């Protein structure tokens, strides 16, 4: 088992308010790790540390270490732009850019690599295939990304996120704004994605976590209450809080 990400005692603050307490996790490579817990427990906050996206907001800060392939990426001298190339992120609501389907996927490619036009077209096709979207959009690559359906838009965002060949994919409730059929497609896609990427998914949907993830972390009030193999968490939780949550007694 290869550890891809090792979070060590992460503490997170919104201004003076502490939102995460001593979060430690070991994430295995090429597996899906689900993050579950009631609203406001810090799931998304935790995920947003990994690509340092929280730094957009000046009053947010983190303490602790986050090792990716053994290197602490929270160190000030780490190049954030390169870090974010290595870590793709998918958000709750699809966020296609106001440009064509093709350009949406080509954007990160052009941003990070010097490629010929044909190479870019190849990579865009690859990424769209990788996101199981190619067959649906191959005839309308020039149409606006905003003209696609919600589920297609989300897969477009996945294609965009995997185009620049990241190693890790962070998904922050990627299906909560998507209809059930499209959700199923994205779940199937995730099982494909883990062959190439290390996937972390925040979800409110416990069935989803049980269906697709290999490991599950249960968050509560900023603490990681329990972390283990998904099957064990759902069939034989060690902590009462976990059991109460997964059996639907709160949250």
């Amino acid at each position, binding site marked *: 088992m290869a550890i891809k990400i090792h979070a060590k005692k992460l503490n997170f603050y919104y201004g003076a308010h502490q939102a995460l307490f001593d979060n430690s996790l070991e994430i295995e490579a090429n597996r899906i790790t689900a993050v579950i817990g009631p609203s406001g427990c810090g799931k998304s906050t935790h995920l947003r540390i990994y690509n340092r996206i929280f730094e957009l907001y000046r009053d947010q800060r983190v303490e602790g270490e986050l090792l990716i392939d053994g290197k602490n990426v929270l160190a000030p001298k780490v190049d954030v732009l390169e870090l974010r190339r290595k870590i793709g992120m998918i958000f709750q609501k699809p966020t296609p850019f*106001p440009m064509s389907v093709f350009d949406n996927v080509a954007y990160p490619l052009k941003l990070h690599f010097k490629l010929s036009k044909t190479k870019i077209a190849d990579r865009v096709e690859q990424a769209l295939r990788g996101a199981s979207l190619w067959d649906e959009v191959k005839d309308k690559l020039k149409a606006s990304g905003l003209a696609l359906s919600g589920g297609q838009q989300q897969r477009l965002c996945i294609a965009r996120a995997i185009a620049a060949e990241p190693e890790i994919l962070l998904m922050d409730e990627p299906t909560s704004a998507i209809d059930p059929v499209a959700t199923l497609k994205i779940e199937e896609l995730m099982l494909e994605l883990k062959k190439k990427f290390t996937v972390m998914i925040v979800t409110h949907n416990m069935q989803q976590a049980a269906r697709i993830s290999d490991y599950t972390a249960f968050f509560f009030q900023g603490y990681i209450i329990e972390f283990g193999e998904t099957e064990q968490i759902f069939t034989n939780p060690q902590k009462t809080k976990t059991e109460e949550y997964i059996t639907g007694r709160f949250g």
Partner: protein
Amino acid sequence: MRRRGLSFRKLSDRLVRLFSTIAVLLAVGAMLWIIIVVVIYGAKALQWSFFVNPSKPYGIPDGGIANALLGSVIITLGATLLATPPALAAGIALSEFKDYKKLMFLLRFSANVMMGMPSVLVGLFVYIIMVVPSGNFSGFAASVALAIIMFPVIMRTTEDMLAMVPYTLRESALALGMTRMRTTLHIVCMSARKGLLTGILLALSRVSGETAPLLFTAMFADGWPNNYFTGPTANMPVLITEYTTNSPFAAMHEAGWGAALVVTALVLIINVITRIIFREKGHGH
């Protein structure tokens, strides 16, 4: 349980509807009235020569508005070119760099002050800092005055339009490894481009009828506007004011009204174009 009388509720419903209808009629009526008056008085002037001849000195027949129209276009375009870049930049700063609270407070506060400043004061200001030292009126000075009036309008609409772009769009751009600057210019402004254009057009139509600042800066000249930077420049608002109030000649009164009709039509057209551009924005967000 005792039912409450229906009649009062129905009556108050009817009253509110009546008042709203009257209010709508008043607003629409006032606009129509203005347009009708302008058309009645101005229509007679609209002949071919009116559009192609320059204005002539008092008492000389066959004067037109061509020089004033051209002068106004030059002055307003100049003002738009001067105002747009800094106003967009300031609007972007207000919306995207909220974290610099004190600086942004200062910017917003001074823009509010500018927004409330009477345009005659702006004209006087430019007169003192540009016209007096250089010793001559100029179309360029007028552009500066109008630009000062346009600046806060464009800035505020820019801020509002960028605020409508969802935060997750910024985050997803940054999450791909874009810099803050690229995210702002390529993604956020691209998303809001129609809104930004709308703001510029609105500001343009707002200043296209401004008269007071032009009296202090462009003044007026009967010739073609061929010395925009160094001499008085013909323009529509001053022509309208002069012709309809100062001239003793009936033909000039008529021409003044004709010019007023042309300005009204142009402002209307700009507004309709703005509407169309903004309505096309029918996607996603």
